[in-house]
């Protein structure tokens, strides 16, 4: 009885998941298929999923006409330095909040946490005014400098992680004469590689996919990030969907590759944030 019920349950689970998979993947397949068609061929009925002929020239066109590659370079220059520095500053603070004792620790931690609760829209305008006042508009600085100070979410997450590391290790290191910075570098960082990797990946992803920040701060086309370049396709290629889809496919490749190599960190990182948040 129970066994039969189990089998039925599994069968319906598979059926459900397969329908879901179709729903999830069809748009992607359609995107890729469109990107390989000659311009007029997208209006064919019924849809040809495998285009005839397969036309790679759309990719050549967007890569030569639009500064996708330059946009990617700009994006990487903007996001990588703040990602590494911010990870370090966040981790240092997280270590202090988790393991060191100093007066006002809880107060400062809670103050930092409130940043996470303030809706982004409230700070959007005043920070724009701030960066405008100091003459940083149309530069990468507004996108880079704040990240160097670390992020509250990252501090929170890493603090939770550091707290699970037993204090005996620290104590032993202290007896060996290491100061807190030494303990942090020699003990904490090596033990928390997975957590740091997860946060680094989230930071990279957030920066890579960010559209609003660059949109507000950057005007000069040569300073455009990849997402700005891609968004400009809409105005530039109007309804030339083969080229727009080719650009979109290209823009997705870096994060998809990252995801396939680092899937474990994604899943662990998300579940840790979710369960403890």
């Amino acid at each position, binding site marked *: 009885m129970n066994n039969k019920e189990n089998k039925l349950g599994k069968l319906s689970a598979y059926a459900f998941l397969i329908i879901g998979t179709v729903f999830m993947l069809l748009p992607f397949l359609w995107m890729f298929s469109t990107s390989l068609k000659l311009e007029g061929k997208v209006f064919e009925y019924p849809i040809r999923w495998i285009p005839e002929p397969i036309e790679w020239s759309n990719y050549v066109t967007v890569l030569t006409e639009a500064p996708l590659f330059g946009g990617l370079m700009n994006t990487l220059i903007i996001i990588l330095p703040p990602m590494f520095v911010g990870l370090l500053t966040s981790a240092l603070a997280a270590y202090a909040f988790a393991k060191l004792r100093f007066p006002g620790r809880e107060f400062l931690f809670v103050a930092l946490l409130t940043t996470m609760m*303030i*809706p982004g829209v409230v700070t959007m305008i005043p920070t724009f005014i701030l960066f405008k006042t100091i003459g940083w508009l149309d530069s990468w600085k507004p996108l880079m400098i704040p990240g160097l100070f670390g992020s509250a979410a990252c501090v929170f997450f890493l603090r939770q992680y550091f707290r699970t590391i037993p204090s005996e290790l620290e104590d032993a290191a202290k007896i060996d004469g290491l100061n807190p910075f030494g303990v942090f570098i020699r003990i904490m960082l090596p033990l928390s590689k997975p957590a740091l990797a997860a946060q680094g990946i989230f930071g990279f992803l957030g920066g890579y996919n960010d559209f609003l920040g660059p949109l507000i701060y950057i005007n000069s086309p040569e300073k455009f990030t990849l997402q700005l370049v891609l968004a400009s396709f809409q105005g530039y290629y109007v309804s030339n969907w083969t080229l727009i889809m080719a650009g979109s496919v290209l823009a997705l490749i870096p994060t998809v590759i990252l995801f396939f190599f680092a899937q474990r960190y994604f899943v662990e990182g998300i579940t840790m944030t979710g369960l403890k948040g």
Partner: protein
Amino acid sequence: MIMTEVSENRPVQPSRKAKRKFNKEYLWGYSFVAAPILGFMLFAFIPIGYSVYVSFTKYDAFNPPTFNGADNYARLLLEDPLFWKSLVNTLYAAIGIPIGMAAALAIAIALNQRIVGIKFFRTVFFLPTICSVVALTLLWKWVFNADYGLLNYLLGLINVSGPAWLNDVRWAMPSMIIQGVWAGLGFHMILYLAALQGVPTTLYEAAEIDGAGSWKKFLYVTIPGISPTTLFILITAVIAALQDFVRFMIMTEGGPEYSTMTIVYYLFQNAFRYMDMGYASAMAWILGILIMIITLINFWLSRRWVHYE
């Protein structure tokens, strides 16, 4: 760094020797937390304070702000029908939250049946989460294309003539909801999957001994067991939904006839198109307060349905 100084004055520690040793630790502690706290002051605390002030002024970001009392707030609440329309639209768009949560839970439950190929399915559902909003929005704009789009093609296969989706006043928002659910499923599914795996099997066994069938087990063991995760998803999803706008900007530009104008998109236009910073700041504060109230209500109601172990 005013705060650290204030808190340093607090009396601590008995023995003098211990005190000196601890003081050194204080110094390490303060220097380690200095960067994020400074960042907090520069990019959160001071801007927020300034934003309160700006919301009571007329300010175009070129000429100095001029104080105009509560004019912005009065204009927003009393004289701006588009503000109210965008607020209603935003709440309408939030219908996607329960739909998405239910779907994510269903997928997580299906994945939790010791399925072969769990990694494949997990990847498939998670894929949109890592993709750029711009690329996905462009993709769906094409999917929703009235004449040659994928969706109306598929509907055509079953002899349904689909609407004009993004160009139809009635269907534009449902289209955005569909796209939002599709894009957000994976993230919530991962959270639910972890929560399901955390429900102790002993509880299911106990329920079985009491004669509970699958449905009752789901209702009385699973649902309470994962309720903390449900609360977490609900709160973060509501906060995100109330501020959702980039995909609206690219997909519909708020149209047709403002049917997909969301509140933050309207705010964004006021701030960066019309350079009406004071008015936009007032809007940001009304939304910010609304978000806080809804979050508090969520927490308050959660005492009735969230079970912590």
